[in-house]
Each structure stands twice: as C-alpha cells, then as structure tokens.
C-alpha cells in the first residue's frame, strides 16, 4: 500500500510539472485561438536563458552571490521572453491572422524549430544546471502509518505549490483586471474585440509574454530537476494530452489534466507495464487523450465545440 501511495504521489507531482507547461498552452489558446506547438521550445529557451545568465552574470559583473545571480538572471530571462513574444507577434502572428487553424499550427511548429535552433546557437547545447536553491533531499512522511514512511520529493512538492500559486495568480489576472477582461474578449471574437477598441496586437504580445513567463517558471522547475537539455522540449509534448483532458480553454483543467496524466502514467507503468513489456509511458498519455477525444472532446472543463452552418 505504501508503495502504491508513493507511486501515486510521485505521479501526481510529475503531473503538476506537466501542468506548468500546459498552462502556457491554455493561455495562448484562450486569448488567440492559436494552438502553440512552440510552448515546449519556449520552455527550453527560457530555461537555457535562465541557466546561462545565472552563470554569466557573476563573471561579467564580478559578484559572488548566487541569489543575486538568480534574481538578475530571472529578470533578464523574462525580458528575453517578452522580446520573443513581441517578435513572434510582429513577424509571424500578425501576418497570419486570417489563416485557418492548420496554418497557424504549422507556423507554431516552425517557430518551435526556430527557437530550438536559436536557443542552442546563443546559449549552447550542453546540459546546464539551474540552481535556485531547491531542496534535493526527499522527505519522509507518515512514518507512523507506514513502515519506513513514504518517500516524497521536496522539490516536486515545491513545484506543485508553485504551479498552484501560478494558477491562482493567473485566475485573478483574468477575472479581476481590465487586461484580463480584454484577453477574454479577444479569445471570444477577434473582430468584435477590435471593433470596441481593444488593441489586438498589444494584447497578443501580452498573452505570449505571460505564456513566456509561465514557460520560464516551468523551465526553472524542470531544469532544476532534470538539468536543462534538449529533451526538455520533447517532454513538453506531453502537455498536449494534458490540455486535451483538461480542456483547451480551462486553466484549472490544465492542473486536473496534469494530475490525471501524471498519476496515470506512473501507475500504469508500474502495474500495467510488466504485462505489456514495459516502457508504456511513452504512449499512455496519448492513448488516454485519444479515448477522451472519442468520448468527450472538449475535455473535462473545456467549452463545448459547436459547428454552425
């Protein structure tokens, strides 16, 4: 039983990490109807920026404090992400406004490739460390109820808290601020929003910047856990089943979806895996998403999709 719970918790924690990436997807889809295949590349890019700036700033400006390096690196990386958002809007999005979904999807794929290439050219392609002081030792809990206690990763717990915090911040942003309201209007109907004076271009830059921010947060947490390396953008592909489960338009859905996928993956690997030869993690999330798509395409919390003639 203890083992089951450990696996479950481990899965839930990984799920939260997926959610961090998925939140970025949902943000952009909610506000611009674009399915951003480049989200994974953005996570990698942001993580690379953070890691390298934290390494370079002490050398360039001659100080020792790791904390100061991290803070400055965070600000710099955020600035870079805003620049990326602005460039994406200016060079790509604004010129593809009236195209169909598949074109926009392909464009974000192109952006993903571009970001991958640029990131590795600018920042290098080794494995880099991010050290934001995350505790690496595991936590032993519930030693009273289970023999030897349950092993939980503190790092993952903090990640979960950060993800939850991010959701709360974003929810407040969307519901309570004027910009958030404008974003929701744009998500509903671009032309109508434009006709009441909402500056579409600026809104999109804001959205992609916010998505960039969530990519940076996700990148820091994943990078701290795994080291910043190219495989990060592949991990991010996992976020797709997460948003399918949770619903493309729901941020809380991204969390729930992430938890389900994470737990499901780990549990199925341990309990189902041996029957099928192992390694089923690579497809479990997708097949689960496929089942969902057949049964409830809008996900758990998404809006129903209606076709009108």
């Amino acid at each position, binding site marked *: 039983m203890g083992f089951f719970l450990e696996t479950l918790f481990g899965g839930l924690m990984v799920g939260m990490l997926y959610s961090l990436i998925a939140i970025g997807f949902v943000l952009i889809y909610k506000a611009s109807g674009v*399915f951003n295949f480049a989200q994974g590349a953005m996570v990698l890019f942001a993580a690379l920026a953070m890691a390298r700036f934290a390494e370079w700033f002490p050398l360039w400006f001659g100080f020792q404090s790791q904390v100061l390096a991290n803070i400055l690196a965070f600000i710099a990386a955020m600035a870079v992400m805003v620049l990326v958002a602005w460039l994406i809007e200016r*060079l*790509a999005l604004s*010129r*593809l406004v009236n*195209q169909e*979904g*598949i*074109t926009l*999807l*392909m*464009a974000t*794929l*192109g*952006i*993903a*490739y*571009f*970001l*991958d*290439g*640029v990131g*590795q*050219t600018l920042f290098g*392609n080794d494995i880099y460390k991010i050290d934001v002081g995350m505790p690496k030792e595991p936590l032993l809990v519930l030693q009273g109820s289970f023999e030897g206690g349950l092993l939980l990763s503190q790092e993952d717990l903090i990640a979960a808290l950060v993800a939850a915090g991010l959701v709360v911040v974003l929810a407040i942003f969307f519901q309570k601020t004027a910009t958030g309201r404008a974003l929701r209007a744009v998500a509903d109907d671009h032309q109508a929003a434009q006709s009441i004076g909402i500056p579409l271009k600026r809104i999109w830059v804001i959205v992609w910047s916010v998505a960039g921010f969530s990519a940076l947060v996700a990148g820091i947490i994943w990078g701290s856990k795994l080291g910043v390396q190219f495989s990060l953008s592949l991990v991010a*592909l996992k976020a*797709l*089943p997460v948003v*399918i489960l949770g619903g493309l338009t729901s941020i809380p859905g991204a969390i729930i979806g992430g938890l389900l996928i994470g737990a499901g993956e780990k549990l199925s690997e341990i309990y189902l895996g041996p029957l*099928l*030869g*192992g*390694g*089923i993690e*690579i*497809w479990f999330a*997708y*097949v689960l*998403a*496929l089942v969902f*798509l*057949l049964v409830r*395409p809008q996900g758990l919390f998404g809006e129903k999709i209606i*076709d009108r*003639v």
Partner: protein
Amino acid sequence: MFYRENGQFKSSYRADQQIFPIAQDRIAIALLLLVAFVVVPLGVSDYWMRAILTPFLILSLAALGLNILVGYCGQISLGTGAFMAVGAYAAYNFHVRIDGMPLIASMLLGGLCATLIGVLFGIPSLRIKGLYLAVATLAAQFFTDWAFLRIQWFTNNSSSGSVSVAGLNVLGMPIESAVQKYIFCLVVVVVFALLAKNLVRSAIGREWMAMRDMDVAAAVIGIRPVYAKLTAFAVSSFIVGVAGALWGFIHLGAWEPAAFSIDRSFQLLFMVIIGGLGSIMGSFFGAAFIVLLPLFLNQLPAWLGFSISTALASHLETMIFGALIVFFLIVEPHGLARLWSTAKEKLRLWPFPH
C-alpha cells in the same frame, strides 16, 4: 509566347479532362520522364543517386500519401512516421517469414497493413477535427514507436527493434546497385503518382475536397462523411506504408524504429505544406526542397569562404528551417505549387505584362 494555348481546342470532354491538357505541358513531362529514366542513370554519380535522388523519390511518395489526407481531405495527421513504420515492418515480416515471397508483394501487403492501422486511427476523425485530431494521430505515432521496440514478434525477436534485409530482387533482377535501386523507386513512384492523380480528379477526389472545404454542405449533397474520411485515411496510409517499405528495404537496408520517429512525421508535414497542400506536384516540390535544403546549407559556408562547426551548422539549419516554414506560410500558404502555377500564368502572357 511559347507557352500559349492558342490553337489548342478541345473537341471532346475526354480531351478536356486529360491530366496535361496543354501540349507544352505534355512535352515537358515527356522530357522529364526521359531525363529521369535515361539520362540520370547514365550520367549521374552513384552517390547522388543513393544519397539524394532515391531518398527524394521515396519521401515524395510519402508526402504524396500525406497530401491526400491533409491537403485534399483536410484531416491533420502528425503520425505519418507511424504508418511508414507499419509498412516497413509488415513488409519485413512478410519478406522473412514466407519463403520466396516476391518483393513487390511484400511491399504491397505492407501497405495494406498500414491501411488497416490507418483506418483504425482514422476513426477518431469521424468525431473530432483540427488540432484534436492532430493529438489523436500522435497517439498512433508514439504507440507504434513503442510497439516495434518492445513487441519482439514484429521484429523477428530483435531486442532493439532493428532489422535488416538483403538480396532483394524482382523477378530475378537484382535490386542492389545504386542505379537499380533508383530505377525501382522511380517506377513505383511514377505508377503511384498516376493512380493518385486519377483519384483526386475523380468522384472520390471531389468528395475529399468537399469534406475539406465544408463538411456540413457535403453531407447535404449526398456525400457520406464516414466513407470519405476513412477512404482518405485508407488510401493515404497505403501509399505512406509502401513508401515506408521502400525506405526501409531500398534506401536504408537496415533500420530501427527511430527511422520513423516523430521527426519524420514533422518532416513530411513540412514537405506537404511547403510544397503545396492539395497538389500532387506540390508533394514533389516539397520533398525536393526539404531534401536539398540541408545540402545547400552545408555547402554555403564553404562557398562563402568560412567554416563553421558541425554542431553550429546543425543548429543554424534548424533555425533557418523553422524560419522558412513561417516565411512560406505567410507569403504563400499554398506552397511552391502555387508559386509554380502563378509563374506559368505569367509565362502564358510573356513577353506581355498582362
């Protein structure tokens, strides 16, 4: 003034419905085929045939298959690599497990297996579209990645999923040398291109395009959405499966599941988009572009007189690649095929401006 239709009047519908109604086009195609079948084998180096032309042909075929699904029927698929893999591994199984199985039969049977899997993973398209369908096809991709790695029966009990074939021949004629491989692929591709072109200009092609353009109206005029979508998946997967078998048997000789990974799926999708959605010729243009671009980028620094590390070169290639995708989608979303037909329109009027 050379490329005019003046004087070329069609007096029957049959004449009007030819694949190449303009005489100049027919001459051009005849010349192209002549070059492809005769000049190339005689004049081009083995390296070029092996490393560039043969892969180009096979990838064009796969892009053709994908174009039918995405360009003509409007169904997104990110799992093309999976169907190539099914074609390759299925053909492999027929080839090694049945003594004396002819090569062409193995390949066609491999294609049929890909058809079955394709239709299976096409069933979601009856309920979902667009990016949702894209995610469903990703399930196919990752599932087959795993299946050919872990399910040992598929790979004749190879532990790493890698297999190889040797001693290929057709009716006693060996397919070993670069020229033989090239000609074999060329014949297969020309035949399939012809069949595909016939399909897209027939009733089924119109059904596919109707589903792409407006599926609600399509149902109202009596088109069966289920039949249209599933046949698109079926035909597309068949072609892609045969291409996969060609890729494994002819081009690689020995392969493992990674040869058909998600990168391959993306590569084929880029070919179709850059080449032109909904255009048979576009598939060839796209394949040529994607095959030649890395070569070009590799040679460019040398021509310009400086050298860069291979790692940097590969990063730059990825960057330029991504940028070009976006560029194409902005400037000409209908791809190279549209640029080509626009050029032909201008050529018709040349030397007059309008």
